[in-house]
């Protein structure tokens, strides 16, 4: 053996054969327990409904790998926790890889093929890297302990808004215990690793191949010298090394064995969840398969295997809990708790050897693990939860699929029932006659083309609120005038248009959605046009993302990007720059759903407005509360409405003059909230279209066109 080969990791040195054998017994037991746990988990997922994935698996893997490695999703809106997790992740990854490499050489390559590489410079460099990795791991873990123990961010409080104190699953202390056990276990494994290293150095201080290279393990070397200073010598070091070796080794094996049974499994499930991610999860809801007898999810096994895996991916980080507008106003919903409830339910029913009877698999109700209908109906499907989830849990389709079952059972607010019946009968949520859909156009000084009868360049899909709501009709008329003045060749479908169905689908009334989408697709296909423009983000979303699933493939854009081009191309000219202090509210369906963040802001800038952003803007925009059909369900009296919460946020902007919206429902919600929060007179709510009109006054605009 050369000197070089002597410089290597000391493994079982000085261990009697019996002890080495004993270690292998423990190691294989741990691996067996781990594998059994993995089997139970896979069996659990396989008890879910089938789902076939689309797209290339390789691309999915690549996206997952990039996201996991760069930690982008974990650092969002919580840089400190993201940074600490990054330290833990890379520390753990390196240490795990290092230990695995030792096993690879010692147990596989060397005994089978006589291959050795774990010595000399390679060993020394690796030793240094692992020592630094240990520091990273411990640093990250200690910050997490500080965060949980002292900072106590509210999102880490497991108390549930949908349960009351005293309920068996109110604040779930077992989660807290598990969190701390997880942190302490890793801290102890890391700390004993260093101590063990130090003890080994002291024990072998006489061996130059060990002692002279000690600074390649700087932390261990420092501790070793400290121990020497405290009087530890060769013999004491040997004893300490022996004891610590077993303690550290067994704890590490225990950790591995417990991975599938504890929160540690997120290492695997979170990564898998990312691989399975659907980038349009909330924008394009799943269809109900023709063969499925009853729509929606009634039993835990009605969720597909991916959704069951989603449940296990959740790390309780609370970002969705924090972002949820329903939770923020005290509604009995936290997206996190929906996921955790269902996870607890899945674990208690699907991990046993035999599948329980169907009656025990019902996920609807108020027992532990079940989800109450009040919780499901609190959801605005605003996508804030899906968007921020660092591990790609897709809450919205889970909630909507559960609602589909509620709709089938008629378990909903009577007013919602009425609205759905009204939409079925009249094709709109206002209960107005179909014939009146285009009535707002009558008072215009020009005629809007009927796109069913003559070809147009641009087909304007108006939508329910813009067509029937009196306040929004004014905006609709203004938009028509602007289009006309800009010389756009456009038309509408008049009574050929029905409610686009976006919100009907998010309510969970899939049959009615299919009817509406089918009617609109037929009407659109019967018209001749190049692109569709709409002022309604809800219609925009469903036509853009969901109609293609029903055979309707159309070019569509929201008016904000369309008008931006008209302004930039000089078709519309700003005559009177506004110089207003404005803030812009990103509508969920334009912003988060379809990433239309820039166009409305650019239009505001072109109009000469100053934009003062609210804290919650763009991807973190706060829902007005009207989404997911909630506009048809009255909010509880005495509880803050999401729109009020939002207006209060805007009211804190000094000198704000205009709260700008670009969605018909937003106009309704926020004008109401402005009044009910007592902010009337301080600033105004306006549709962006109204500001455009102010910047391009009517007469002069007409002169300009002439």
């Amino acid at each position, binding site marked *: 053996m050369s000197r070089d080969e002597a410089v290597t990791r000391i493994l079982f040195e000085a261990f009697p054969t019996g002890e080495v054998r004993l270690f292998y017994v423990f190691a294989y037991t741990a691996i067996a327990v781990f594998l059994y746990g993995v089997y139970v988990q896979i069996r659990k997922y396989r008890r879910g409904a089938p789902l076939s994935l689309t797209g290339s698996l390789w691309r999915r893997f690549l996206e997952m790998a990039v996201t996991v490695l760069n930690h982008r999703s974990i650092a969002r809106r919580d840089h400190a926790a993201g940074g600490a997790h990054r330290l833990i992740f890379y520390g753990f990854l390196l240490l795990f890889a290092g230990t695995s490499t030792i096993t690879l050489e010692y147990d596989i390559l060397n005994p089978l093929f006589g291959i050795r590489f774990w010595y000399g410079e390679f060993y020394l460099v690796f030793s240094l890297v692992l020592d630094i990795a240990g520091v990273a791991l411990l640093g990250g873990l200690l910050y997490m302990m500080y965060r949980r123990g002292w900072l106590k961010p509210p999102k880490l409080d497991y108390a549930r808004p949908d349960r009351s104190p005293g309920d068996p699953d109110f604040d779930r202390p077992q989660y807290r215990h598990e969190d701390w056990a997880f942190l302490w276990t890793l801290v102890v494994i890391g700390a004993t690793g260093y101590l063990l290293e130090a003890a080994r150095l002291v024990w072998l201080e006489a061996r130059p191949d060990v002692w002279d290279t000690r600074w390649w393990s700087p932390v261990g070397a420092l501790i070793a010298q400290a121990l020497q200073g405290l009087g530890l010598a060769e013999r004491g070091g040997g004893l300490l090394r022996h004891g610590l070796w077993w303690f550290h080794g067994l704890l590490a094996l225990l950790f591995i064995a417990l991975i599938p049974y504890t929160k540690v499994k997120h290492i695997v499930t979170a990564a898998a969840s990312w691989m399975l991610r659907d980038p349009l999860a909330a924008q394009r809801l799943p269809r109900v398969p023709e063969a499925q007898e009853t729509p929606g999810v009634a039993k835990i096994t009605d969720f597909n295997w991916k959704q069951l895996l989603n449940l296990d991916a959740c790390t309780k980080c609370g970002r969705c809990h924090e972002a949820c507008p329903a939770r923020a106003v005290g509604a009995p919903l936290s997206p996190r708790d929906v996921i955790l409830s269902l996870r607890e339910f899945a674990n208690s029913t699907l991990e046993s050897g035999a599948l329980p009877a169907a009656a025990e698999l019902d996920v609807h109700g108020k027992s532990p693990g079940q989800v109450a209908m009040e919780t499901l109906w609190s959801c605005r499907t605003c996508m804030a939860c899906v968007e921020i989830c660092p591990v790609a849990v897709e809450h919205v389709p889970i909630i909507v699929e559960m609602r589909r079952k509620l709709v*089938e059972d*008629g378990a*909903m607010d009577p007013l919602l029932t009425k609205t*759905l019946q009204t939409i079925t009968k009249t094709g709109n949520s206002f209960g*107005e*006659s179909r014939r*009146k859909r285009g009535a707002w156009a009558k008072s215009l000084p020009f005629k809007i083309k009927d796109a069913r009868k003559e070809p147009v360049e641009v087909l304007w899909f108006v939508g329910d609120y813009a067509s029937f709501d009196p306040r929004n009709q004014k905006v609709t008329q203004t938009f028509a005038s602007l289009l006309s003045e800009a010389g756009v060749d456009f038309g509408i479908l008049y009574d050929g248009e029905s409610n686009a169905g976006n919100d009907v689908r998010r309510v969970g009334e899939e049959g009615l959605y299919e009817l509406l989408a089918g009617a609109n697709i037929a009407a659109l296909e019967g018209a001749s046009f190049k692109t569709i423009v709409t002022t309604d983000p809800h219609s925009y979303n469903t036509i853009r993302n969901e109609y293609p699933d029903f055979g309707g493939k159309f070019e569509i854009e929201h008016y904000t990007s369309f008008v931006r081009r008209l302004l930039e191309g000089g078709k519309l000219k700003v005559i009177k720059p506004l110089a207003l202090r404005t803030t812009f509210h990103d509508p969920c369906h334009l912003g988060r759903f379809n990433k239309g963040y820039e166009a409305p802001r650019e239009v505001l800038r072109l109009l000469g407005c100053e934009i003062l952003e609210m804290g919650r803007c763009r991807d973190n925009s706060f829902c007005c509360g009207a989404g997911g059909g909630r506009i048809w369900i009255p909010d509880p009296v005495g509880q803050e409405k999401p729109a009020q919460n939002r207006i209060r946020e805007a009211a804190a902007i000094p000198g704000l003059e205009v709260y700008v919206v670009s969605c018909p429902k937003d106009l309704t919600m926020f004008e109401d909230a402005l009044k009910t929060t007592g902010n009337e007179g301080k600033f105004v709510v306006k549709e962006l279209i109204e500001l455009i009109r102010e910047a391009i006054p009517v007469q002069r605009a007409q002169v300009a066109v002439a």
Partner: protein
Amino acid sequence: MKILVAVKQVAALDEDFEIREDGRDVDADFLIRDLNEWDDYSLEEAVKIKEGHSEPVEVVAVSIAPEEADEALRKCLAKGADRALRLWDGALEGSDPIAIGRALAAIARRESPAMLFAGVQSSDHAFASTGIATAAFLGWPHAAVVSLLKYTAGARSAVFRRELEGGLLQEVEIECPAVLTIQLGINTPRYASLRAIKQAAAKPIEVISLADVGISAGEVGEAGSHSHVRRMLIPEKGHAQLIEGTPAEQAVRLAGIIREFKGDAV
């Protein structure tokens, strides 16, 4: 055990409707059709009785109408009716509630249910007499405006409450078979999802003729009716004016009108 539920596809006026050329009805183009609201409640009551009973109970929805009423019947099937019957013959055109009652009674004789439910009235013509006329032809006990019902399928009698004027309730025991006309609010009708309605389309609607129930063309329609619609008309508009302007302007104008009415000097 069977409960027969008489239902009607009613018409509601669309915006800007026109009267038919013969002047006796609204032009069908301007009508929006739906299941009569009262019938929604009577069907729900029957389905609830069925669901609350361990023995099989058959709920049969029946309508005397042309094919377009199939939509309403499908809704009934979606909400839990087991069968749907539709009686139609051109001779039925122009029937008044007495003639419809005669036809319904004939169907009831054929089906021999333990109970016959009808709505208190239909929302379009509001005669409120079809159910009672049916009972008269059958010679069955009957009651109108039932707002609460205690009835076990197959029982010899039922107990119900009726709404009287002035907030008074009357509790009555009635022998079965009986005809009850059901009032709104007796229950909460369930929602029939579009999917359920679509699935109900697979269930057949049995179409029967006058001959099937043993009545002649002369007993129904114009010939078998005792009342005849002469014409439909839109009353002259009364004196009403819309006050326009800002809320402040509206208030000033309104106050002025009130003063005028009181005779105060303006």
